[in-house]
């Protein structure tokens, strides 16, 4: 039996992770999860044989100690989890303590004899690297949308064991958590996206892009500075390396310079139209169609033109 430990501090993609481990030929699948999230039925259907549940505050420094303990006892070949912030921190610490290799944000994984070979985005996201990880165990966090799930025909009920950790002299305490305002829209499945960047001088001006989006039935997205520095739009509108990776049929980038970290998030768009007044802006290299014009002058003209067209069609 070859063991994999699947770290689930969020069960959204439990099927993808379990199915990926089964496809790798790992046959003793042990889920490591906070107590309150454990779903025995769900885990069993996709092939988990055991669930180790834990009680601990969701603080990576502490959770990594528990994971270290479990890995030291079970000797897994692979420890996997989702490519999320807390998971990467837990894995980084546990891997260091074990003297183990770790790779984050993997889009592909295979076991080739003594090594585990993964692929992941590097160099700002415009490139994909093959990386070979030696030793055992290996830690890997996976990009969930790159992996598929398939139910297991020989489903069984996993055994549940639990461990408890209450930090004694807690150096770290969570004192508050504020949930982010969500737009309620999943950009990653939108058919048309209009995205805004630093070319807009103030928040009120985004109305120009919203009007265009309204006419096209498109969702609004943005580059990282708009959501993270300026906070003009919620974080779930951010398209790029550390945000959403989208695949719309039509993507319109307005006032976006096209840094590699943004462009990686729109590589799968079918048609890209860029509106930017700087002809040397990198976004034009990534576009099917470029409009080199001041967005403040061009958008009102475009919106008027689109309205006229619609009027004609209706009439």
């Amino acid at each position, binding site marked *: 039996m070859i063991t994999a430990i699947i770290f689930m501090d969020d069960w959204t993609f439990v099927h993808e992770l379990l199915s990926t481990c089964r496809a790798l030929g790992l046959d003793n699948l042990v889920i490591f999860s906070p107590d309150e999230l454990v779903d025995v039925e769900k885990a069993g259907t996709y092939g988990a044989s055991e669930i180790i549940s834990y009680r601990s505050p969701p603080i990576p420094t502490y959770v990594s100690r528990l994971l270290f303990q479990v890995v030291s006892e079970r000797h897994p070949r692979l420890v996997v989890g989702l490519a999320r*912030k807390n998971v990467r*921190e837990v894995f980084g610490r546990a*891997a260091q303590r074990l*003297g183990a*290799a770790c790779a984050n944000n993997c889009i592909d994984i295979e076991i080739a004899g003594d090594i585990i070979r993964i692929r992941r985005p*590097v160099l700002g996201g415009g490139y994909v690297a093959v990386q070979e990880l030696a030793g055992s165990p290996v830690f890997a966090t996976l990009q969930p949308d790159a992996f598929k799930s398939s139910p297991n025909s020989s489903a069984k009920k996993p055994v549940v064991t639990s461990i408890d950790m209450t930090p004694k002299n807690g150096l770290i305490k969570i004192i508050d958590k504020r949930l982010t305002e969500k737009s309620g829209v999943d950009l990653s499945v939108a058919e048309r996206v209009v995205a805004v960047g630093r070319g807009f001088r103030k928040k009120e001006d985004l109305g120009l892009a919203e009007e265009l989006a309204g006419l096209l039935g498109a969702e609004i997205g943005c580059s990282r500075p708009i959501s*993270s520095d300026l906070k003009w739009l919620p974080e779930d509108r951010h398209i790029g390396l550390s945000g959403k990776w989208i695949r719309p049929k039509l993507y319109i980038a307005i006032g976006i310079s096209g840094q590699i970290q943004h462009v990686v998030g729109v590589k799968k768009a079918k048609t890209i139209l860029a509106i930017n007044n700087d002809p040397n802006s990198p976004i034009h290299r990534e576009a099917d169609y470029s409009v080199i014009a001041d967005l403040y*002058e061009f958008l009102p*003209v475009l919106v008027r033109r689109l309205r006229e067209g619609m009027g004609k069609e209706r009439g």
Partner: protein
Amino acid sequence: MLNIHVCVKQSIDVNTLEFDPDTLRPLVENAEYRIGDTDLNAVEEAVRIKEKMGGKISLLCVGSDVRPAVLREAMAIGADDAYIVSDPLLRNADQWVYANVLAALSKRLGIPDIILCGESSLDDGAYQVGPRLAEELGLPSMTHAVKIEFRDGVIIVERAVEDGVEVLEVGLPAVVSVGLEINTPRLPSLLMIRAASRKPINFVSIQELGLTSDKLTSLSRMGEVKAVKTQRKNIVLTGSLEEIASKVASIIRSEAVMNK
């Protein structure tokens, strides 16, 4: 008076990096190097802490061929001195090795009150060195910090996680990794740049750190790296704004028809 270490990495400037159109291989031999974006956020944050609390900021930079000139901007922003470990031995170093060398260097200089890192390097994007360094030093870690506040011997750190912002209290010393959201690094003035040229940059040899060979042996190896190529039409629409708008309208229409 606080002692602050800031880990910075000499990274490939991914925004000027080109690739061979036939093989898709990045032209690393022509690459320009600079300190990564989030590393500069870490330096800026250190300077803001120093301005409030007083203290000393040392840059820690580890690599196979570190050129002191790449540290100039970070020094001008307000670091006081820098310690470089540069050795060809580190050519294929992974995050395990980087963390081990940084930990040994930090220990040798004396564990500071706080160690700041960028959340991820500009070129490798591994998201590991902060947590690994903290583990190696036996210190608490905080990743993706967007705010750091000092309060009698502890820090209050706000972390941006996927569903919101977490506020944590952490005892010092601690290792904190920061993202782009935490601040906007200042543009150093000419005066600051001139002053920076007189700040000490110290080289520490890797042998002096007394690391065993297992701590200098990478656990992972980079294989083939290829650009993700997307074929685009690259058509520039020309004419008056009215004419361009008509062209855009028909592109949108045909796109809609094509995808029906």
